[in-house]
């Protein structure tokens, strides 16, 4: 027993180091004063952070990625909440069939979704790039919303809702005043996960960005193709700070285990 614990804790410790060290190196190199990335760094500067905000693609991309992520997460919730309510509250024939349809987007590889949407929405229907991208990101978020909210709805005690009906609230008021407040944790968890998923997405975004529509992850990818300097490290650190902030919100209001 002892030896097994010791063996697994040694491996576990090494694995944790391997998970942290690469990100540490990114953080350290973002402060290096040499124009080529070097590790360990020589000299200390904050110029690369300044340089991030001199790149119009990064600044524009950051704004667009934020807007799309917020819209996609919100729309996915607006579609997902009623669907999950119906699926968990009513007797529906072929219920699992409906559930599978909603989880469908998680089955098709993201890059394939991106390609299919690009072909149909952008090329054939001539839909604006922004709208097509938003559709792609909503589809991406929907399975997370459905999964987390279904779990949340299952935990919700239906008798509370019935009690509200009995004291005379109609179904719509009950839904907003009783059901929604009771599953608000799941809603927040779904929103945070959807936001991160959309904000970080590359395979779908790849097909639907262009000179008129910059998204941050694909902008970094493009920048990396032509440059290799600590600006990328600096923008990476900014992305890590966003992740950390979202994790702090999640930890404060939900507990981190809600996110997995």
């Amino acid at each position, binding site marked *: 027993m002892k030896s*097994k614990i010791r063996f*697994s*804790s040694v*491996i*576990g410790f090494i*694995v944790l180091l*391997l*998970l*942290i060290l*690469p*990100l540490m*190196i*990114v953080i350290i*190199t973002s402060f290096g004063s040499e124009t080529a990335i*070097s*590790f360990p760094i020589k000299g200390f500067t904050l110029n690369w952070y300044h340089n991030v905000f001199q790149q119009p693609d990064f600044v524009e991309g950051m704004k667009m990625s934020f807007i799309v992520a917020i819209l996609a997460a919100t729309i996915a919730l607006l*579609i997902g909440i*009623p*669907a999950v*309510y*119906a*699926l968990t509250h*009513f007797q529906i024939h072929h219920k699992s069939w*409906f559930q599978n*349809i*909603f989880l*469908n*987007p998680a089955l*098709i*590889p*993201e*890059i*394939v*979704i991106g*390609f*299919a*949407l690009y*072909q*149909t*929405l952008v090329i*054939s229907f001539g839909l604006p790039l922004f709208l097509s991208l938003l*559709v792609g990101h909503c*589809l991406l978020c*929907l399975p997370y919303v459905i999964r987390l909210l279904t779990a949340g709805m299952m935990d919700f005690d239906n008798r509370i809702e019935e009690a509200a009906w009995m004291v005379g609230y109609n179904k719509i008021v009950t839904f907003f005043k009783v059901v929604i407040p009771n599953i608000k944790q799941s809603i927040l968890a779904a929103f945070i996960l959807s936001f*991160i998923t959309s904000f*970080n997405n*590359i*395979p779908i975004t*790849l*097909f639907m960005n262009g000179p008129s529509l910059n998204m941050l*992850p694909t902008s*970094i*990818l493009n920048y*990396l193709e032509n440059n*290799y300097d600590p600006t990328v490290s600096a923008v*990476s650190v900014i992305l890590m700070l966003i*992740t950390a902030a*979202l994790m702090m919100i999640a930890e404060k209001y939900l507990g*981190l285990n809600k996110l*997995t």
Partner: protein
Amino acid sequence: MKRSTTLLLLPGLLIIIILLIYPALRMFIPTFTSGNSLFENYRLFFSSSNNLKVIYRTLMIAVATTLVTLGLGLPTAYWISRLNGNWRKLVSIIVLFPILTNAVVRNFAWIMILGKNGVINNFLMKIHLIDTPLTLLYTNLAIIIGAVYLFLPIMITSLVSSFSQLNSEIEEAAEVLGARPVVVFFKVILPQVSLGIFTGSILVFVGALTAYTTPQLLGGNKNMVLATLLQQQSITLGNWTSASVIAIVLTVIAVVTMFVLNKVSKMLDRRNNLEIKN
């Protein structure tokens, strides 16, 4: 079905049918109808030795990634499941943080580590183990390392939730009866966490199979996989039919693997439950 139920389900259903299934069919059907015969496009795709190489490389990377993440993930998850309180919390944060960090950032880190002037080469040259830098970046190995880094936290998370439900009394019983630790691990612990192993493996295998960013950044132009080939054929070359065929092949491999692993895991799970009951 009641009208209100229909109304609640309709927006979601419409969006998925019109904006996902319809585009998918519009991609799927022409791969059969645009050739001289039904399977012409597929015959052409599979007759190219280069394409077969890409499929082989894609599968090999996905299998290697799954096995390595399992090998590292099992002891790590076992260890984490035995931690308590603040340690457990700190470790969960360290595991969760990379999952939520952009894939570009995580792969970029490995460009810095594996590159010609990267961390590993610099270190090895400094201690005079090598004179000329090793070619680590833009190889299959680099893609596997990047994918392992990308998916290991997901494997660990799936395994930890399985390990946490483990009943340690069964383990102790086996030890009291004289089973060696290795035997306990393989005969007592592993069967109980088989569900977590399969869930994790499905996520990692399909993730590595369909990943775009890692092979794009760490594999270079020579080491194409299906996802990067799809991007090249569509965006760079505008070869729609060929790109659609690749998309279908990739989807079929992913869905079939998920289906088979799911079935196997359910079978194993049922057998374990029976054994425990008996």
